């Protein structure tokens, strides 16, 4: 059995650790490239959202590399994601691929159920080994997210940005390869030290909160590398979504660490008063939260036609006005052009800088 899975940012490092720990042979899909886009777009429903298309591209490339089993998550709506695996299976079967698909249906707040699902996926695994594996994968995830946050903090500040990127990428690769907890800690420690040593400029930092749909936030190629680009513009980006929070809230029922979710949902009221699927409520809640923490602005990102985010987008103007925070929404699909995206980001950041300067001046006066 050769197992593959879809990409979502650095999630592959965690998933790799998990599947390997279950004694499975893993075939990671090649990194998302132009070819992945092309394959996905060619074979997916024309009006499906971008994450589905990229999943399809990932799967085709992995099946071509010899994978014979796909692991994919499921769900029960109302967002389309819950039906992805079904449509993806049909597409790939109609293309003539032979494979098995294992769909992990998100157990609502049942840790034991998840452990069971993973255990049965594993190759003759004891319960103890399964739990151990989950723990090890979780540690890798924590390390990866610390690196990501460090990058997001340093990128707008350091002068030599390519050196920073190099340290970050190397640390990610090493973490992926690491086999012991101690090794993971070492790599992390070393990388953070190196990142902090790079000389920083004194340019004024603009702080932006990034809200929206989870895949678009986590997978850089689906947002045309927005976070990196913002770093180059001297903007520090804080994401509303980290994979570990999502796993903690949705798969583990807040079991591993204290959840922030309740506070965020409370912040979303009275602007939005019901669950709308995906992260729609959180998008509003985090925008309010960022505003109250005096961020300079918020950017909402989502795949074109994403329903929960369209609901949030429709409500954001009211939030923006009432909470006094500039908000910009960007949708992504395969037709988006990098140049156009960058122009819009630059214009938004310029506006924030001007506004910021005006406020500083009026404070001085």
């Amino acid at each position, binding site marked *: 059995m050769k197992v593959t899975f879809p990409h979502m940012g650095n999630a592959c490092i965690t998933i790799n650790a998990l599947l390997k720990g279950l004694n499975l042979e893993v075939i990671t899909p090649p990194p998302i490239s132009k070819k992945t886009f092309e394959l996905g777009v060619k074979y997916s429903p024309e009006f499906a959202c971008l994450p589905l298309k990229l999943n399809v591209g990932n799967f085709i490339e992995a099946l071509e590399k010899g994978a014979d089993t796909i692991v994919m998550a499921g769900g029960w709506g109302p967002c389309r994601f819950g039906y992805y695996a079904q449509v993806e299976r049909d597409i790939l079967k109609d293309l003539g691929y032979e494979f098995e698909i294992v769909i992990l249906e998100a157990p609502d707040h049942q840790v034991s159920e998840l452990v069971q699902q993973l255990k049965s996926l594993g190759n003759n695994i004891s319960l103890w080994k399964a739990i151990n594996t989950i723990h090890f994968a979780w540690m890798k995830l924590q390390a990866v997210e610390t690196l990501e946050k460090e990058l997001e903090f340093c990128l707008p500040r350091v002068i030599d940005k390519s050196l920073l990127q190099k340290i970050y990428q190397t640390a990610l690769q090493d973490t992926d390869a690491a086999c012991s907890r101690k090794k993971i800690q070492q790599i992390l420690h070393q990388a953070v030290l190196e990142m902090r040593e790079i000389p920083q400029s004194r340019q004024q930092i603009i702080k932006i909160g990034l809200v929206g749909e989870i895949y678009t936030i986590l997978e850089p190629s689906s947002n045309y590398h927005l976070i990196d680009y913002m770093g180059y513009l001297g903007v520090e980006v804080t994401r509303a979504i980290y994979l570990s929070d999502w796993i903690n809230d949705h798969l583990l029922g807040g079991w591993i660490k204290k959840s922030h979710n309740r506070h965020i949902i409370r912040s979303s009221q009275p602007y939005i008063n*019901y669950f709308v699927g995906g992260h729609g409520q959180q998008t509003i809640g985090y925008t309010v939260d960022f505003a109250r923490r005096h961020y300079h602005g918020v950017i909402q990102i989502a795949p074109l036609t994403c329903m929960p985010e369209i609901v949030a987008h429709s409500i954001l103007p009211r939030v923006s006005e009432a909470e006094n925070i500039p908000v910009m929404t960007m949708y992504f699909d395969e037709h988006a052009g990098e140049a156009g995206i960058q122009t819009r980001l630059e214009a938004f950041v310029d506006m924030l800088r001007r506004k910021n300067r005006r406020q500083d001046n009026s404070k001085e006066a």
Partner: protein
Amino acid sequence: MKKVGIARALFYYYYYPLWKTFFQEMGAEVLLSRETNKLTIQNGIDLAVDETCFPVKVYYGHVQELCRQNIDYLFLPRVVSIEPRSYICPKFMGLPDMIKASMLDLPPVIDMVIDVSINNKMLKREIERIGKIFGRRQGNASAAYDHGLAELEKCRALSRQGFTLREAVKIWEGDPLPPLPGPFDLNIGLLGHGYSLYDPVISMNIVHTLREMGCRLYFPEMLEMEDIEREAATLPKRVFWTLGRKMVGSSLQMEKDPRIDGIIYLASFGCGPDSMIGETIERKMKDKVYMLLTVDEHTGEAGLHTRLEAFCDMLRRRRSISHESYLSSHG
């Protein structure tokens, strides 16, 4: 008498008789927005975000029109779920919040939550809550709601006979029975979300056009619920969108129906469920011609007309060919 405004859009098509009866028994007068027209569309496009689907834009337009009338309450239901373990669509779940965010000076809103995804309890509470708004005693509103359901059933009986939901509501309101269109030489299954398909502006008059072209139309509302559910259950995973599942089940049932020559699905551009369901059906259709039409506010009526004509011609040609081969092989 208090006036309650109801938008002639979205779930108006599925629930108007219920809502009207209910509010009338609450002692209110019901004011309906006009049929969708150019102004409704223009207002909707101006008010809603670009990326939203056409039917929701049209809803904004209807609400805007109601706000300019002299009404005491605006009925903005939050239709989350009308059956266990299923949803309509995220946009229906956020609709009252979306409308409130984009229109200032709304009249007092009755944002009834309709959510039976788990059980009926919340719906019952909501009915009583609305009863209180109209000064009704406990139990009174529930009785009115039940009465409304009975009226709705009358209307549904009409749609089972082959009237569109829009025609059925009109007949229920007392309009004379329209003359049966005809003659027909083709039988076509026509699918789509009711608020798109039966709104002549959104659907660009597809119902009328097809009838004029000589097609007898079969709508999902004409099928037995049991048949629809049975066919839909042949999919490996239950479709958790109510309308989506109804469309899958209907199309599979229609495929089996020997009377039906071909099937058309009218999808909305930008509709999430349609983007998955339209193709899922296509993959399942083995024996019948199927056409997926995706429309939005930019679709031209002329282009649609041409495609429908071509579809009908093709069906007629196919039929004559299969007729000939039948003759030759047995002659």
